[in-house]
Every structure is written in structure tokens, then in C-alpha cells.
């Protein structure tokens, strides 16, 4: 269908939708503007004196070493595991697929708590690399596994028939086509590392994010904090640009939708046992250790008094966490709606600008968003500082890109022809949206809503700065106790966070399994092929 007929369906070009979408886009850019503005407010001399000193070089070096070690390690681990699970005759592949995603159910800062309470000497770079690699490699595994499932095996068969060995075949035909998934996954790992606070604070390994939190404790929302945050923003944008370059422009899939060949599983032979042992080791380190330690401390805290040993406020804290999570998820979905409609129904320059804005916003670390909102509210709207609406806004800005992905794939399920028919029958613009489009988009939208809510329920950094006075969340209560090294008191909150995150793993597993099965409902004028588009969606779903 020509693009013109799509924008003619009306909704995408309705002034209200355009205005709302533009307003939301500006809102997501607001943290960047505030932080840069506040940093500039100190003047060039202050910026130079503060930033050009050994301490900043040390923070840069720390951040750099962490990225240099964790990103490649997580990538190798993720790609290797994905290949074993999706392309070989590995026994119990389906179980391993779940297990490789299970680390996502353990928030990274809970994992570092478990490790450090078991091995207190594990501080500094070594501990930070260990925990972040184990926590983040699923970000690579997920998109690579999804893409491997959809990848046409034809090229591999040709390579094999020409006498190339299995390793060579993988390296020369599969790996190049995995480029978008690998670079996308590596991007996520890198962005997470830049934004990580809990793990690094616990490991006593200082990076920009921990330094920003420290500067906040010393000087509140002062110029220095914003200067540090500006450097962090620049690092995020550099990573984003590198990824765009690394992804490449080469086409990675076949043209047209001929019958794709399902790959024949590569026999592992004598490598079966080592492969199984390797995967088992990863699961042991990434899942068994954290869960065992949480249970151990949970038992230590409750062994004498049973359930009475649980904190009295556990239920209350869980409920208020869920309340914030649902509220934030709802707000993110609502704020994402105008943009998603605009992107789905029109291809104007505005839509393109919006798409890029969302892309940039997806790289925003929680600490930057929170610092900007603190600065903004204390200066201009003191009544909003430390209120529920403000923290919900922070969550919505942080997770808007993720909500947008879900909304867009949902809207794709509601073809414009239906909207046009409804209009012909006399329905108004919002009537069409409410009665035709949204009901069809509901499953995807709901999935997006749940994903965002789950992410919020374990959010730590922005919550530390913006939590309404007196409000306790699971992450805050956990952090308060573990910060005092009171491991037993922290365990119940950790256990609830893990329990809440299990559905996340299940939902993401479905993303791999349905890969390829999900044919696009209609041709997309943007001409993305389904595999690449699916990869991108999977990547964006796990963001943060």
C-alpha cells in the first residue's frame, strides 16, 4: 500500500496527535536540556577546572576498563550460548533457552549483593566485571537467539556443500548476518554499564554514575553533579553512535519472502559434554549463586521466628512498589501512544524526528533523568519535588522507548483499512482509536505495559533521588539494608524482586520462540525485513 493512503487515514496527521507526540518528544529530551543547561550555568572556567583533573580521568579509566572487559565477555558468552541453544543438537535446548534468560530475573544489584556477601573480598574491577557480565549477557543472547531462529539456513548449506567446516561456516555466513543483533545487544550491555549504580557502589568501583550520586549527596543538584552527568551523557551518545556504525548498512536477510530453510542442528559430538558443562557453569554463577545466597540470608533472618522474622513492612513495601510500577507503566503507555500512532500512520519528517528522539532517549541513564527532574522541580515547581507524579514522570521518560516498541507492534496489528472503514461508517478520529485500533492492539500494549511495570519495580537509581518522602520501594528497602551490610534484612526484599521478575523472563522467552512465526500483518513502507525489525524490537524490549 502506498504511504500516502496511510496518512490519508487521518489519525496520523490529526493535529491533536501531532501536537501530543511532539510534546512528549520534547519531554523526553527535557533531562538532556536541563542537565546541559545546569552544567553550562557554572561557566566555562568552572567546567574546565572541575572536569580537567585527575579524578575525572580516573573515573573515565574505570568506566573504560569496565566496558572494555564486560562488553566483549558478555558478547562472547551471549553469542556462544545462543548458537549452542538454537543451532546445535544440544540436549534439552528448550530448557537451556529458559535458563539463559533466567539471569534477567535477578536484578544486577541483587546479584552483586549475593556475590559480595559470599565472597567479601570480591570488590573492585574483578567483581564488577564478573557480576555485570553474568547479569547482562542475556541482552546479547536474546536478540542473537531470536535472529538465529529466523535466519535462512540456505547460505550455510551452500558453504558446507563447498567444503567449509562448521566453524568456518558459522564465521563466514552466520556471524556477518548476526551483526545487527550482536551490535544491538552489545549496545544494551554498554548502556547498562554506563547507567549502573547498585553493582558498582557495592563493589566499591567508582564510575561516573556512582560519582554523580556521591556529588548529589554532597552538593544536591549543583553544577558539579550536572557536569558529571553531562560527561555521562556524552559517553552514552558516543556508544550509541558506535553502535549505529557497527550495525552496518549491509542487508542481512534475503529479499522477498520465499521459503526459508530451517537450519539443521549442528551435531556437537564429543563437544556435547563440555558444552553442557559450560552452560551449567554459567547458570550456576549467574542464577544459582544469587538465588542460593538470597535464600540463605532469608533463612538466616527467619530461622528463629519463622515468618515473623520477615520485615513487618514487606507487604506494604511490595504494594507501594507495585503501585508505582503500574502507575509508571500506565503513564509510559499513555505518553507513548501519540508518538506510536504518528509513527504507524505517517511518514512525515516529524515522524522521523520523533523516531530519532526516542532512539536517543533510550540511552538516557536513570541518574541523569532523576537529577534533571530534581533540579527542575526544586527550582521551578517545589510542590512537585519528591511527589508521586514526579517519580512517575521519571519512570515514564526512562521507559518510554520500551513502551513505544510494544505500542508500535500493537498498532501494526490494526491495519489502516479498518480505520478507514470505521471512518466511512461515521466514527470520529478518537472513536476509531478507542473502538477499532486499541482493541486490536491490546495484547501488545498489555505486554509492553507489563514489561515497563516490571522494570520499574526493580529500578534503583532514579528511585533513590526521587522517591516521595516516606515512600519505601523494594529496591530502596533492599538498598537501605544492604548499604549497611545487613544482608539478612535485605534478603526478603531481594526475594520479592526476584519473584516479580520471573514473568519478565517468561515473556522474553516467548519473544525468541515466536521469532519468525510472527509474519508482519502488512508490508511496511519503511521496508524493513521482518527479521531485522524483530531483532530491533526484541532489543528495545529488554532495554534497561
Amino acid at each position, binding site marked *: 500500500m502506498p504511504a500516502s493512503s496511510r496518512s490519508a487515514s487521518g489519525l496520523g496527521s490529526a493535529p491533536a496527535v501531532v501536537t501530543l507526540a511532539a510534546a512528549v518528544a520534547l519531554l523526553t529530551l527535557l533531562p538532556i536540556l536541563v542537565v546541559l543547561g545546569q552544567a553550562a550555568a557554572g561557566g566555562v572556567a568552572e567546567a574546565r577546572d572541575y572536569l580537567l583533573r585527575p579524578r575525572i580521568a*580516573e573515573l573515565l579509566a574505570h568506566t573504560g576498563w569496565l566496558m572494555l572487559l564486560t562488553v566483549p565477555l558478555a558478547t562472547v558468552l551471549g553469542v556462544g550460548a545462543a548458537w549452542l541453544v538454537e543451532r546445535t543438537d544440544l540436549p534439552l535446548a528448550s530448557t537451556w533457552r529458559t535458563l539463559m534468560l533466567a539471569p534477567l530475573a535477578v536484578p544486577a544489584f541483587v546479584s552483586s549483593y549475593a556475590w559480595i556477601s559470599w565472597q567479601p573480598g570480591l570488590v573492585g574491577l574483578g567483581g564488577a566485571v564478573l557480576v555485570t557480565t553474568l547479569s547482562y549477557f542475556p541482552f546479547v543472547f536474546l536478540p542473537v537467539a531470536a535472529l538465529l531462529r529466523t535466519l535462512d539456513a540456505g547460505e550455510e548449506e551452500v558453504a558446507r556443500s563447498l567444503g567449509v567446516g562448521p566453524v568456518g561456516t558459522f564465521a563466514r555466513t552466520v556471524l556477518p548476518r548476526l551483526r545487527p543483533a550482536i551490535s544491538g545487544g552489545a549496545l544494551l550491555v554498554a548502556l547498562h554499564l554506563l547507567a549502573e549504580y547498585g553493582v558498582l557502589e557495592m563493589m566499591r568501583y567508582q564510575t561516573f554514575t556512582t560519582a554523580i550520586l556521591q556529588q548529589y*549527596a554532597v552538593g544536591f543538584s549543583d553544577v558539579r553533579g550536572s557536569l558529571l552527568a553531562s560527561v555521562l551523557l556524552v559517553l552514552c551518545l558516543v556508544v550509541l553512535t558506535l553502535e549505529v556504525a557497527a550495525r552496518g548498512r549491509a542487508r542481512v536477510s534475503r529479499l522477498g519472502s520465499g521459503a526459508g530453510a530451517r537450519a539443521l542442528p549442528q551435531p556437537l559430538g564429543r563437544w556435547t559434554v563440555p558444552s553442557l558443562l559450560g552452560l551449567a557453569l554459567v547458570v550456576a554463577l549467574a542464577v544459582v549463586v544469587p538465588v542460593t545466597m538470597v535464600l540463605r540470608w532469608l533463612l538466616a533472618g527467619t530461622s528463629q521466628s519463622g515468618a515473623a522474622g520477615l520485615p513487618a513492612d514487606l507487604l506494604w513495601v511490595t504494594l*507501594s512498589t507495585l503501585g*508505582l510500577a503500574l*502507575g509508571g507503566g500506565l503513564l509510559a503507555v499513555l505518553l507513548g501512544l501519540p508518538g506510536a500512532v504518528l509513527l504507524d500512520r505517517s511518514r512525515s519528517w516529524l515522524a522521523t524526528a520523533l523516531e530519532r528522539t526516542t532512539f536517543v532517549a533510550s540511552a538516557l541513564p536513570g541518574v541523569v533523568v532523576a537529577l534533571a527532574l530534581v533540579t527542575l522541580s526544586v527550582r521551578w515547581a517545589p510542590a512537585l519535588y519528591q511527589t*508521586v507524579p514526579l517519580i512517575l514522570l521519571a519512570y515514564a521518560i526512562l521507559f518510554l522507548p520500551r513502551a513505544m516498541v510494544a505500542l508500535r507492534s500493537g498498532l501494526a496489528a490494526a491495519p489502516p483499512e479498518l480505520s478507514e472503514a470505521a471512518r466511512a461508517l461515521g466514527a470520529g478520529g478518537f472513536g476509531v482509536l478507542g473502538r477499532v485500533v486499541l482493541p486490536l492492539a491490546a495484547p501488545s500494549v498489555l505486554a509492553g505495559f507489563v514489561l515497563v511495570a516490571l522494570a520499574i519495580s526493580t529500578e534503583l537509581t532514579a528511585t533513590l533521588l526521587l522517591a516521595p518522602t*516516606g515512600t519505601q520501594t523494594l529496591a530502596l528497602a533492599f538498598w537501605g539494608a544492604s548499604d*549497611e551490610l545487613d544482608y539478612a534484612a535485605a534478603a526478603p526484599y531481594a526475594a520479592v524482586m526476584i519473584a516479580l521478575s520471573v514473568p519478565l523472563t517468561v515473556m522474553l522467552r516467548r519473544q525468541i520462540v515466536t521469532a519468525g512465526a510472527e509474519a508482519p500483518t502488512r508490508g511496511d513502507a519503511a521496508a524493513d525485513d521482518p527479521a531485522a525489525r524483530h531483532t530491533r524490537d526484541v532489543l528495545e524490549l529488554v532495554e534497561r
Partner: protein
Amino acid sequence: MSPTLSRRTLLAGLLASPFVLNACSKGEEYVPDPEKLQIYSSQHQNVTEAWAKAFTEATGIETQVRAGKDSSMGHQIVQEGDASPADVFLTENSPAMTVVERAGLLAPVDEATIGQVREGMAPSSGLWTAIAARSTVLIYNPSKITEAELPQSMMDLADPAWDGRWGCAPGGADFQAIVAGMLADRGEAETTAWLEGLERGATVYQNNIATMKAVNAGEVPVGIMYHYYWYRDQAGDKAGSGNTQLHYFGNQDPGAFVSLSAGGVLAGSDKAEQAQQFLAFVTGPEGQEILATSKSMEYAVGVDVESDPALPPLDGLDAPPVDPFTLNSDQVTDLMTDAGIL
């Protein structure tokens, strides 16, 4: 999943969430009630709440507490300026109060209130008063170091001989108050040199408790911290301090610095009289008794009020004579920034 089912689930989920949210956040969020006395407090929450409750019982004046952390709350009040809803500000360490004081946002404390606390426990400016006190101590692990090997002065720790053998938590307001005391007592040159020694040789921990537990575990032989974390742990199961002892420097050493928790009335308060009443209550016999028996293990500062019997007497600590008014946390932050610690 049938579309009908998911549509219903979606609708139910979306409609229910704001209600869940409301149910969960009601009464928690800070919305200043103009009828109530607004207490901004970075002092220990249980102590603050005990004071507020007893004050309301004694006077009928209703209060509302907003909890925060020393430095950030001090700066928050400054940024809120005259519009700040705060009537009273209570801190853990006085430098957070001097931030507000320097911004010209404090009203003089009633002389009768200052008369209730011990000599030297209020700044020369008269703009705030001590409400509690804590002492700097050296914690050590006797299995790693003998008493005879301990440093004579906290200043000695900057000596290269101590590199890698001591720990502290310089990122926190607690420690920054100690450095502010050193700065007021010994001047900028000595403090700068000491901070350089810290940057080079100290193992940095997140907070006092982490420092204490590290010494307890033998990671470092000695650490600098405040006394009350140790006494609280000793009063409990001793899990974090069982292997350790405290050493008091005394001798008016910077390491014997006594940090004052401060209380002040905001100049912009529209309840100035009740705010003064609250400070008078906190520093009076009843308020100080609440503190002394709160198990917070902080020192009471009221005239003739005894602190917890486990603590060595406050008057015998031989702390350096420092006018708390001169404690300058901004300068400390700058020095620590220059030294590369922050």
C-alpha cells in the same frame, strides 16, 4: 490468548492501576500541611519521630516530618529559599546547618534554649543549637594491630607508613564534618596534606558501618568512624564489631572531634513561635531524655542530662575546641575535590 480475554485483562489492568497506586501511596507522599509544624530532618528518623510525637503530646502542636540526608537536605532548603515549607531543620552533623546559615535563612534561636545545652554546644552566631553529639573514634582490630602500634594522632594516618592500613568513608557527611573540624583546627595546608594522604593510602568504604565491618573482618587494621555505630552493634549481637576495640585520641586531637547534630529555626517560617517551642523541647530535659534512652547511642547535650551509661562521658573526651559556626562544608568539599576524593 483470545482477543476478548486480553482486551478485558488490559482494561482491568489499566483501570485498576491508578486505584492500587492511590491505595499504596496515600499518606506517604510529602505534601506539607500548612496547619502543621514542618520539621525537615536528616537526624536519625526514630529519634526525630519520638521527639515530634512527645512534643505534640506535650503541647498539642501537630507536626509533620520530612526525612532526608544531611548535605542534600541542607542544599535543598537553600534552593527552596524563602518559599521552603520548612519551619525547623534538624541535622546529623552541623555543616549541613551552616550551609543554611550562610545562605541567611536562619532565625536566631531563643537564648533560653541555648542556655539549656552545655557550654560550647552552640555556635557563636547563636543561629542554631546542638541537639545531640557524636564523637570521632579510631576502631581497630586487636588481632591485626596492638594498642601500642596505634597512631598518636589522626594526623599520623597521612604518613606513608599507614598507606593501605586504614579505612574510612570520605563520601559521607559524617566524615566531611570530621574534616571540617580539622580544617577549623589545623588550617588549610595541614588538612590538604592529610587529605592527600587519605587519597593515596586509605581504603574507601561506602559508610561508617562498612568501615566498621571491614575492620572487624580484618580487611584493614584500623578505621576512622563515629562512636555510636560501634556501641549500637555492641548492644546488639556484636556481629559487626565483636573483633574490634575503640581508641579515643583525646588530647584535643582532630581525631577527637565531636560533631554536633544541629537544630535551627528557618527565618521564613510562618510558625516561628511554635518552631522555637519545638527546639526548646528537644534541647530541654524531656527531649534530651528521649534521645539518651533511644538506643541511638548518640550523646545528649542538655545540661545535666546523662547519655547512655555504656558511653564514656562526653566531657572527658578532650575534643578540640572548635566554634562549630566556623565549620565550612563547602570548603571541605572543595578540598576533597582538589585532593581527588570526590
